[in-house]
């Protein structure tokens, strides 16, 4: 039986839904599931993880000092240590912004193969499905090695409850901060908790049709009401209406949310490269001939300066 460790990401002391989705994905195979938790295990965490099928919860509390706790090298070292200690043969983590800074470190430290941004994993054959060439190609990649690692795209798999009897063990870690890499400071964004593009269920994005920076506040307001992340096309970023971090597309973030709402975005091939794996695309556009109108699930033809205020009002 495979021994798989799932690196659990938490938010506000709760297990992220996207982490639960990883458990569901891993549990499709005949596998013994460890949850690797670095941020403390309380009762609700324990119940939550057991409900989705974890067999053993590995509590590996890091020091409270954020300079230790938030250091990606420390976190990666902890996961690698746990993998060796528990003799794991498979490791799962999320391809979130944090995950992209941690999972490849684990692979590099252990010198084992990794596929990031997996949309699916076949554990019988150790084959992961991921996108390549700016999202234009799906690749099946087979990993071989004593340990293999998969970085799963958030929301690739919806969590499904599969209750198990979970026991909790505690691993004590050597959490010295590496001398050559220390965390000096961090900035969690001015509003502290803006939803990240890669993980959001809903993304509302704006493009050329917004016309200027001031109008983009409609997108932010709407996002706030529906708990969505804000995205943008390259034009909006190049014009300086929104920061680079909002850009969706081949040179920006690649996202696969449940719903992608494109407002005033014509839908260039470069933009599609970043969002075409969204489960549902809703396009709000005045121009019924815009490319996006033919490649969406719903097209709302009309003036976004009338439709967005209505949405804000009704939400």
């Amino acid at each position, binding site marked *: 039986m495979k021994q798989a460790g799932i690196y659990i990401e938490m938010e506000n002391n709760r297990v992220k839904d996207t982490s639960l989705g990883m458990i569901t994905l891993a549990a499709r195979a005949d596998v013994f599931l460890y949850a690797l938790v670095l941020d403390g295990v309380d009762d609700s965490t324990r119940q939550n993880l057991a409900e989705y099928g974890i067999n053993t919860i590995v509590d590996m509390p890091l020091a409270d000092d954020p300079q230790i706790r938030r250091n990606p090298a420390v976190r990666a070292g902890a996961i690698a240590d746990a993998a060796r200690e528990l003799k794991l043969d498979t490791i799962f983590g999320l391809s979130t912004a944090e995950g992209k800074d941690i999972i490849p470190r684990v692979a590099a430290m252990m010198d084992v193969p990794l596929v*990031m941004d997996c949309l699916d994993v076949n554990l019988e054959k150790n084959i992961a499905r991921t*996108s390549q060439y700016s999202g234009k190609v799906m*690749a099946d990649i087979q990993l071989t090695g004593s340990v293999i690692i998969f970085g799963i795209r958030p929301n690739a798999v919806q969590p499904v409850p599969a209750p198990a009897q979970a026991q909790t063990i505690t691993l004590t870690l050597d959490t010295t901060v590496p001398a*050559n890499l220390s965390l000096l400071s961090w900035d969690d964004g001015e509003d502290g908790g803006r939803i990240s593009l890669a993980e959001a269920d809903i993304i509302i994005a704006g493009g050329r049709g917004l016309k200027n920076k001031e109008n983009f506040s409609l997108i932010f307001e709407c996002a706030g009401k529906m708990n969505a992340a804000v995205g943008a096309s390259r034009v909006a970023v190049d014009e300086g209406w929104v920061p680079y971090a909002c850009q969706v597309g081949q040179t920006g973030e690649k996202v696969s949310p449940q719903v992608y709402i494109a407002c005033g975005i014509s839908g260039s091939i470069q933009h599609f490269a970043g969002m075409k794996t969204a489960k549902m695309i809703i396009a709000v556009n005045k121009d019924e001939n815009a490319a996006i109108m033919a490649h969406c699930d719903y097209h709302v033809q009309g003036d976004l300066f009338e439709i967005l205020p209505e949405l804000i009002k009704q939400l």
Partner: protein
Amino acid sequence: MQIYVCVKHVPDSAANIHILGNTQIDEKVAFLLNPYDEHAVTEAAVLKKTVPDSDIIAVCMGKKDAEKTIRSAMAMGADRGLVVETDAVCDSMTTARALHAAIVQDGSPDIIFTGKESIDSEGMQTLFRIGALFDFPVVTNAVSLEIKSGKAVVTCELAGGRTRTFQLALPCVLGAGRGLNTPNYPTFPDVVKARKKPIQTISLDSLGIPPGPGSAKIVALEPLIQKRRPKKILGTPAEQAKEIIRILQQDAKVIS
């Protein structure tokens, strides 16, 4: 300072990608310098301005044609180039070993720049593997860099405007993100100058790299074809907004 920049020769993101057989793409498309690597080369050139005796070496593994990407990097500021030539498709573990071996053979790096990922294989890991092989610290998606009393102070971006600022001992590996700088694209005189800069080619075989303890192999490629059947949402703006909300609640189940 010896500044190495690892660059990759990748298909233009705008190219039509056709799959040949089951595991390869038709390479008769435009190839160019990986866009994230443009930021890496630009930052190296910026750094050289403050440390004038620096030597910037662009390193690329790939087919013979990869020389073009080295020329692009040299036109943007690299002083010389190093091609690790191979016709083989290599995974990240092998690539990192090859780049590591080539750099070790060539000199002793003070900083190694890379892009945060390549736009073709989108693996996001080679920079970390290079760091591990050298035992150098690594950060990715760097958006600002300052060298202060022999250390690199680097701010990296996470999603949603969040950042982390790290201090790295030199030598180190830095993965450039889009926010690091505006790429300093070459003028025609820069291109003329780059033609005269030296490129050294080494074959992958000559580096004698032992096989790694694992591998990642492409077993199938298929074009991503999206089939959507667009439905119109009509009515007044108020009715359209109402219908969007209904879809979000009842069909997509993403809001309550």
